[in-house]
């Protein structure tokens, strides 16, 4: 037992671990040209995100049984999405009135109506004004109606300086929630959405995000509990989409189904109803208000964007109501685990190096792959069952580097050090 402990805490293992972390630090600082050393682990220098795997692979897993397709993940029947397509303001008003007559808990409208419609032609103007007055009347008559707003970012002060709303003829009669989402792109490019900002203080007043506002109408306690986390940025725990390809995780209706009353009367009672754009008709892929999300199996730019904005809001509402928000392991714990895992890897690899030097290349890789597999499994399982994001990134990177760096340490650094020491001793003896 004493031998094992002594072997475990051998100086070589400690120094090799320090050497690996020193090389890691060097890779971060200096751009190394791609070599056989770096290239196989090139991807691990990028941010490895296990949550993407849960959304794009595990949660979307489907069993096919000839004619039907089954997905294990539970749907959310508290949220109903209505696609208003390219309907006019008057028709949207009509749809709102129809839905409202079935006593939903709240209706959220994911659209801006910034200016009144106007035409120089006096006859057309009458027609356009009628559309606006229908929508304004709907806003006044419907209780529990929430419209989106937009926080305006000032580049010079790097803060939010104001809120953009729909025209007062609509916005004066409804509640507001900002619809801003955090993306790497802008309005004119394709965008990836992984996180959102739940609340902000604007001009001394607390403003909450659109999905948070809507969730509070069903469960105020859950919404407050979510806000009490006080996270500046929250990761979205995606449930799913509303497409034929990926499956339907929320109840969804098209504009003509609403206007033609082609739905069961029980569908809206006490539910959160979201009005938004998901194509001219349900199932159409367009480039308006559509994002890339972690549920997309391919990289940004290599496939169609996969989720409309309104569906992202639905996913956030689901996360709040089911309290399935993602908690993240602190960075320092991830780093500490990285050090421990690296050390254990060095011990095992060092043993292989000493006992089976000729087979080190093959056996070493097997040990590395095995440890990596275990770490990935723990990461993904923890995220899947507990919505807890473990940061094993440093650990996985060091494991993948350990094999080659241990060889460099043993054959170059350690041997070099021994030779230098011998030379010094020889000179002393002379």
């Amino acid at each position, binding site marked *: 037992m004493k031998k094992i402990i002594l072997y475990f805490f051998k100086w070589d293992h400690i120094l090799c671990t320090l050497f690996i972390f020193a090389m890691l630090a060097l890779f971060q600082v200096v751009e190394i040209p791609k070599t056989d050393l770096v290239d196989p682990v090139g991807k691990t220098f990028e941010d490895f995100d296990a949550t993407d795997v849960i959304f794009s692979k595990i949660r979307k897993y489907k069993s096919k049984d000839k*004619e039907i397709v089954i997905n294990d993940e539970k749907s959310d029947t508290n949220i109903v999405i209505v696609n208003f397509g*390219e309907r006019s303001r008057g028709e949207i008003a009509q749809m709102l009135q129809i839905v409202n007559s079935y006593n939903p808990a709240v209706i959220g409208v994911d659209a*801006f*109506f910034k200016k009144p419609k106007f035409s120089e032609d006096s006859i057309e103007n009458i027609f356009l004004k009628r559309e606006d007055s229908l929508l304004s009347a709907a806003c006044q008559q419907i209780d529990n109606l929430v419209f989106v707003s937009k926080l305006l*970012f000032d580049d010079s002060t790097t803060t939010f300086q104001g809120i953009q709303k729909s025209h007062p003829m609509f916005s004066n009669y409804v509640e507001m929630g900002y619809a801003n989402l955090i993306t790497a792109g802008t309005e004119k490019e394709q965008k990836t959405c992984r996180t959102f900002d739940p609340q902000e203080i604007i001009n001394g007043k607390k403003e909450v995000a659109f999905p948070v506002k809507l969730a509070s109408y069903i469960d105020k306690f859950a919404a407050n509990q979510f806000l009490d986390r006080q996270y500046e940025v929250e990761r979205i725990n995606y449930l799913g989409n509303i497409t034929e390809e990926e499956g339907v995780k929320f109840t969804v209706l098209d504009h003509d189904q609403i206007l033609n009353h082609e739905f069961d009367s029980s569908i809206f009672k006490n539910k959160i109803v979201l009005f*938004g754009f998901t194509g001219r008709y349900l199932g159409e892929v367009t480039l308006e208000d559509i994002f890339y999300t972690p549920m997309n199996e391919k990289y940004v730019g290599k496939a169609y964007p996969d989720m409309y*904005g309104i569906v992202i809001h639905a996913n956030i509402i689901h996360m709040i109501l089911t309290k399935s928000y993602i908690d993240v392991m602190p960075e320092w714990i991830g780093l500490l685990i990285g050090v421990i895992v690296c050390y254990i890897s060095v011990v095992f690899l060092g043993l292989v190096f000493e006992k089976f030097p000729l087979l080190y290349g093959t056996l070493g890789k097997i040990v590395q792959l095995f440890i990596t597999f275990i770490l990935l499994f723990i990461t993904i*399982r923890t995220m899947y069952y507990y919505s807890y994001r473990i940061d094993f990134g440093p650990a996985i990177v060091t494991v993948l580097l350990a094999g080659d760096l241990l060889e460099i340490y043993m054959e170059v650094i350690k041997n070099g050090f021994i030779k230098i020491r011998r030379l010094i001793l020889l000179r002393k003896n002379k």
Partner: protein
Amino acid sequence: MRKSLPIILTTLMLFVTFITNAQGELFKVMATKGIIVLKKAASAEWKPLFTGTRLHKEEQIKVSEKGYLGLIHAPTGKTLEVKTPGTYNISDLATKVTSNKVSFSEKYSKYVYAELTSAEAEDPNANHKKNMKVTGSVDRGLLNSDFIRVFATGNSDVLNSNTTIRWMKNAGAEGYVVEVFNMVDEVIQKNETVDTSITIDLAKINYGEFADDKRVIIKVSAKNNKKLISHSKTIVFNESKELATELANLEGEFSEESSLGYLIKASFYEQKNMFLEAANCYEKAIILEPNSEKYKSMFRNFLVKYELPEFYPYYTVD
């Protein structure tokens, strides 16, 4: 005991009925597309099936060609999709759902063979406020001139490969650049012009891997100011033979060019969500009958419906 017996029996019957019904209710409809019909246990009649309907074990459903049905299994919350046309017993569908059990380990092991994806290069959360310029919402009824207004709806199908794209002249533009993108935002054609229109031959475009779905995005920007740009307009080149046959049958009813014929064609195109084709027909009808206020009024209403009334003075002969 005798007096309370009827009460007890009634309560028991109600309880049994409740339990039976609760057990019988197996699915709730989440989404429907196409023709889906339902036959209840006590009836021989097929009736349309709507979203939100609850399905019971004695019932049957029928899914048509190109139909889609999304269901949630009430006891477990699992989702089930039916995309293949046919007739299905609800009880059979429920059995398939309950017997389908896939463990996490099985899903994970299948993932292990797939390539791991990595996150995007930069972290937008490092300064999240700066990266919150996008909302998950749309603008409806926006009227201003700080962008180039293209005469097209956000999405439009076309039957004719030679499609003319027009836009409103912008005071800040010295010439225009018309870019054609594929669905992954790659430029596949670029043209420059000083006019306010351009004709694109959609049959000659190289769609690459998207050859099965001939869809392009058009953006028009000012040559001297890239920030002065239009909203994206998606054009779909519809090569449907059925549509072409329908149109040919319609055209066969008019032996020569007539304004009425064009109006009827405009109505046909409008029904098929083909804004550009419909607009062309309205214009041709007005050119043939320039004094007809009725035709002009119809065209105006058409433009108002698609929120482009400001184009009326540009494209009519007054």
